[in-house]
């Protein structure tokens, strides 16, 4: 950040005579594009994560020496069990079963939650009308509803989908609502001054302005949905990953239960990263300078 006119030759660079333009050039703008320059993820970012993982594995390994495998299998045994789950116990098929209800449940919750959040955001009466129900939904332990769901939907796929829908609905509504409400008056006023009608106000102001909030809501909903998916599979008709957990738990196959937990958490981390990545694509304006 200085007055060094010749310092950063870059494509599409104006031959500017304006010092303020020189001064404002963001550092990463040249950094990201530079071929063969800085690595994509700097060491400072991954070293602590990698370090804590190694420490975790080491402590686990040491602890497992003091206990029989039925109580605490070591890392090697656990990852071996994970391999066995795939190779012998058909983890992939159980996973496919689980994923199916997860996708349907979320597929129903995401659009409807966003729509309701939007309505509540733009309309005080809607906000007041649904407020108490949302609060109730938030504080009620959803697992209490499982007997009801059994009565209403049976113990099959429908009940699992309904349960996943209910646990993931709240963050979607609330985040979308917050996104709409956070829209500053200056933006709506500016849009109005430039002749935005109701359609444009929605499409060009409220919707893009809410995207970061909506994506955050989807990320939260995903977490809740994964928890809900396993819960439903353990308490309703026992299928999918939940079935495997119950089954191996009953047989005291500790390593396999641990391996399943690791598998689900890895899956959760992967989809969360996917959502984060899609946020960068959907809302590139929220990207901040990563070099500092």
């Amino acid at each position, binding site marked *: 950040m200085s007055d060094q006119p010749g310092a950063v030759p870059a494509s*599409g*660079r*104006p031959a*500017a*005579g*304006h*010092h*303020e*333009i020189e*001064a*404002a050039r*963001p550092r990463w*703008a040249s950094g990201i594009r530079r071929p063969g320059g800085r690595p994509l993820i700097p060491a400072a970012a991954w070293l602590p994560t990698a370090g804590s993982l190694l420490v975790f594995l080491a402590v686990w390994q040491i602890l497992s020496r003091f206990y029989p495998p039925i109580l605490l299998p070591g890392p090697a045994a656990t990852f071996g069990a994970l391999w066995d789950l795939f190779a012998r116990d058909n983890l992939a098929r159980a996973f496919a079963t689980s994923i199916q209800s997860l996708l349907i449940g979320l597929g129903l919750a995401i659009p409807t939650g966003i729509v309701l959040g939007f309505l509540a955001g733009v309309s005080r009466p809607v906000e007041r009308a649904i407020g108490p129900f949302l609060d109730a939904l938030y504080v009620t332990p959803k697992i209490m509803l499982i007997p009801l769901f059994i009565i209403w939907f049976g113990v099959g796929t429908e009940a699992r989908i309904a349960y996943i829908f209910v646990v993931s609905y709240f963050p979607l509504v609330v985040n979308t609502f917050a996104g709409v409400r956070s829209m500053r008056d*200056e*933006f709506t*006023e*500016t*849009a*109005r*001054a*430039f*002749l*935005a*009608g109701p359609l*444009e106000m929605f499409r*060009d*102001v409220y919707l*893009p*302005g809410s*995207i970061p909030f909506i994506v955050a809501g989807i990320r939260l909903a995903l977490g809740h949905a994964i928890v809900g998916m396993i819960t439903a599979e353990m308490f309703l008709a026992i299928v999918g990953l939940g079935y495997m957990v119950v089954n191996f738990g009953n047989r005291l196959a500790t390593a396999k239960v641990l391996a399943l937990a690791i598998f689900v958490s890895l899956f959760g981390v992967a989809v969360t990263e996917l959502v984060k990545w899609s946020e960068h694509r959907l*809302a*590139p*304006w929220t990207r901040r300078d990563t070099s500092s």
Partner: protein
Amino acid sequence: MPGLRVDRVSKAFRGSPAAGAGRNGGETGRRDLRVLHEISFAVQPEQIVGIIGPSGCGKTTLLKILAGLETADAGAATLNGSAVTRPRPDIAIVFQLFNLFPWRTVLGNVEFGLQMQRVPAPERRERAARLVAMVGLAGFERYFPHQLSGGMQQRVGLARALAIDPALLLLDEPFGALDYQTAERLREELLKIQSQAAKMMVLVTHNIDEALYLCDRVLVFSPRPGRVTLEIEPRFPQPRWAHDIYAVPEFTRLRAEIKALVMGAEA
């Protein structure tokens, strides 16, 4: 008839608690806050008229009325023969804090007004790109506002307003949030743009030097409720940016006159 006529415009905010002098006292209820009292003036084509006054004298409210964002309680503003009652395609505004849409690129922001007016995409791209270049930001079309300095952001704000080719350009303390040098450079460029574009402009500011430097006519407002207490037509050597206007004796004299009025009113 071409030009902007502002005819006895008055405005009060209903039951504003800020005006409730007797909120806890004996007075019942809230009081209206009168911000503008029978403001009248005219702007001829190609003229820049400045409005200066103490804070809270209603200058921004007046600008919003001229933009069609607020309605006057009494009186009317008429642009080129038709009353301003709502935002119009021939009026554009530049805001003090730029008000760029953070989710749009430089080009997207400049395109906004044209898009709202349903100008076909290829045409509005081309026009927006031309305006971006005109304000000195060629090469920054795909940047987002947060990647730009304040001065660059206001250049975008200016380009966005000029892109719709307005008959009237409203400027609400456009350089008030910028550092001195940047503001000074942008003022100079505004004058240069004006020498080409020849717009009608109304500039609201609290900066006396800026008003004198930029405007063909300066209206000095009284404190709330705002009234026009002084009208000045500075005559300086042209083009102004090519001369050191600040050193002209006339400038010093006018500045002292306005300052006495504004400061006296605030004390």
